């Protein structure tokens, strides 16, 4: 290839360059995008679709009984999911509990489901071992949580209550609220048809092709984009600055709440009321643990954000939870003075990782057997004491 050091305007291009230069451009694009995508997919594999789960219309996801699947966030390790004979994510049988065991039901959305975290490193795995030691009996977790919106979570409460657990644990974060499930939704499961529907991004035929060609889908499907974001978000400051540029999504950090966020709190009020009523009918106490979103945790850790109040939404949620007679614990204060907030999360995915789950396990332990009037009686309290949340019980 001949060099062209003399690029003075006025010099004519050889004819072949009219073909060659665009071709070089095209090849460069293909090479860069292709190598970035192949490289990142090789180094950071991802499998978020759980092969045991199927979407049952408005009822949400249900797992095939006695099924084992493998999932992985690009940002995390491989996870083996074991579903028991009831299709619940649990190493224990749902129908024949171990005699004298302490049964706890997990309800709610993906954090309670221990999504993308190996069971042994999840809050369930960690507390199962610890509570068994402190309570002197085996712990039997039955997981009614899932990849649900608030309405779908609420609809599983009657099933959870029917298994007569000693307590129910639910995690809540602002993503659960932001999903915007309809407010006028009928929470009676019988009101909804049980039929399997295609997963998002899996529509059949031409509709599926068009659906998958949407820019947001392509971006979400790009591993290179995900990994780029992952490394950018490792900086708490960067993550916070970018997050605060969101409008509606970040408005929960900027009180007073917008009508959209007030509507979301109203949906929570309705759904949580339904869940608490269902569980109370079976004398099952409900522990609700609030988990801050990563940007919120960054603010709590001490980073500044103009016009923000990282505790406003916690207080509003805490009031709703207590109004329904449930116990409220707030994880937020645990992030005070934490220097490396991103290390508790999968920064792009947004879920808590194994380190974050250690924090959750501490909260669950405190919520179930800590304090003057523990929800689960007959257990020793661990010697280490966690700081009480500002909006705790």
């Amino acid at each position, binding site marked *: 290839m001949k*060099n062209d*050091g003399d*690029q003075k305007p006025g010099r004519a*291009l050889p004819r072949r360059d009219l073909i060659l230069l665009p071709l*070089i451009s095209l090849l460069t694009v293909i090479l860069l995008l292709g190598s970035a995508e192949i490289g990142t997919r090789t180094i950071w594999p991802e499998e978020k679709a759980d092969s045991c789960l199927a979407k049952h219309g408005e009822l949400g996801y249900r797992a095939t009984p006695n099924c084992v699947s493998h999932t992985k966030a690009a940002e995390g390790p491989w996870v083996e999911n074991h579903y028991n004979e009831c299709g619940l994510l649990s190493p224990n049988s749902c129908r024949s509990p171990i005699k004298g065991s302490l049964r706890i039901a997990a309800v709610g959305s993906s954090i309670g489901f221990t999504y993308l975290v190996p069971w042994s490193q999840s809050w369930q795995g960690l507390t199962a071992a610890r509570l068994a030691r402190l309570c002197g009996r085996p712990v039997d977790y039955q997981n009614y949580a899932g990849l649900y919106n608030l309405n779908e979570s609420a609809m599983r409460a009657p099933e959870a209550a029917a298994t007569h657990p000693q307590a129910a644990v639910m995690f809540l974060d602002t993503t659960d609220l932001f999903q915007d499930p309809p407010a006028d939704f009928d929470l009676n499961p019988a009101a909804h048809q049980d039929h399997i529907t295609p997963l998002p991004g899996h529509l059949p035929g031409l509709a599926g092709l068009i659906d998958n060609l949407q820019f947001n889908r392509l*971006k979400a499907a790009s591993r290179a984009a995900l990994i780029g974001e992952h490394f950018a978000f490792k*900086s708490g400051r960067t993550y916070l600055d970018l997050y605060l*540029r969101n409008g509606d999504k970040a408005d929960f950090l900027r009180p007073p709440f917008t009508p959209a966020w007030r509507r979301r709190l109203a949906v929570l009020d309705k759904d949580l009321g339904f869940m608490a009523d269902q569980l109370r009918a079976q004398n099952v106490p409900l522990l609700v643990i609030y988990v801050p979103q990563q940007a919120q945790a960054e603010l709590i850790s*001490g*980073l500044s954000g103009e016009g923000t109040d990282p505790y406003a939404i916690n207080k509003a949620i805490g009031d709703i939870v207590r109004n329904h007679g449930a116990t409220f614990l707030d994880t937020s204060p645990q992030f005070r003075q934490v220097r490396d907030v991103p290390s508790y999360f999968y920064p792009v995915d947004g879920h808590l990782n194994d380190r974050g789950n250690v924090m959750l396990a501490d909260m669950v332990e405190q919520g179930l057997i800590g304090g003057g009037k523990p929800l689960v009686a007959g257990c020793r309290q661990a010697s280490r004491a966690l700081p009480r949340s500002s909006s705790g019980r």
Partner: protein
Amino acid sequence: MDVPSIQFLGFAAAGAVAYNLSGAKWWRMAVLLVCNLAFLASFTHQAGAFIPYAGFVLLGYGFVFAIQNGAPKQLRVVAILAMLGLFFWLKKYSFLPSVTYLTFPYMAVGLSYVFFRVLHLIIDAHDSETIGRVGPFSYLNYTLNFTSIVSGPIQRYEDYERMTGDEPALLDLVAVGVALERIVAGLFKVMVVSHLLSMAQHALLARVLGPETMLEHIRDGALLIALYPIYLFFNFSGYVDFVIGVARFFRIQLPENFDRPFSSASFIEYWSRWHMTLSNWLKTYVYNPLLMVLMRRVRSKAVGPYLAAFALFVTFFLIGAWHGRTAEFLFFGVLNGAGVGLNQAYRTFMSARMGRKPFAALGRNRVYQALCRGLTFSWLAFTLLWFWSDWGQLGQIARALGPLGMAGAGLVVFATATVVLEAMVSGRKALLSLGSADAPLLTSRYLRTAWATALVVFVLAFQVVMDSPAPDIVYKAF
């Protein structure tokens, strides 16, 4: 409308197509005027907000017109003082009583750069041989040229007039390719590199102000100090690359504003490579006249050789002070002036002591050059602390680092800059030596096409990943 931005690019593309539809001068001037006014209108939709700006521009034309039509010589001085006063007032310089400020919101985007152009015309209006008759449309298009109004570069009127008149810059396929390459390079520098550096600087500031070990403090303190000049370079030179590329589609060749400033081995050299059009403007209209006045007035043989140092101090103090209206910018000006002044005094002193030839030989010594480069960068980074920060924040940083941390960070900046900049200069030489001497491999149009395409991919990918606007052009605020 942000510059650079995709929106601006679309706007300029539409303007350029219209501009090139006809070669008639009246057509091109009309299209350019519409573009200039439309661009200004994109900043506010309130007509009243334009009144002070319009007054400033029109008064400037009034002076130019009067001078070119035989007004007495003294009018030039009155005009300069009037425009200076008006500029300070509209920019709300803090030495003016705040009660005199206009209380309604008004447009001030690019006012500094309009000011430099207007002042240049007022000072040179009498020199009709060089700049010719300045017509009202040419004046408006020159002072409000949308491609360079926000932050320069400052083009001389005669160059502008030539290119919009009889000698438009050539716009063939090669020129289009080169212009697109500049636009892409500019977008990459601003939207990717300066964005990343800005984020890194924010993160470093948070880390320095937080609890760290002494070694971490020294490392992060050094990075915090050193990163800003690099960020500023990519931010500002990226903008300049972008507007030079865009202006080329209007057949205007804007002057270069940067020439590898970090390769400078002295602070004086640095200012001849950084924001070159502003330095040249000040050298022409402040340094040269001031030095001539001083040389006429001061006859002392002992002081004489140091007059240039004093004139440089004043000139570059003004550059610093021009940037802003606060005590921090004044101090930045003092440090800038001290940098070039002491540099000149050192040259004068060493030439006298060692002799011109031995001192020149020392200047060619590679180790000496590398150390000077490191010192120049370190001094620049130090002065810029008053550019990006304020006294309160600097106090916080100083308290967090402590005397040992500050000294350590300063030494690390100097040592690292010396090594890295030497490697950069040598590396560039080595890369340019690849291929034949008259056509180095790096300048191959095939390689440049691939590189520019890669930059486009990086810019787009970065925008997709970050999903947020690039940081503003720092110089837009001045």
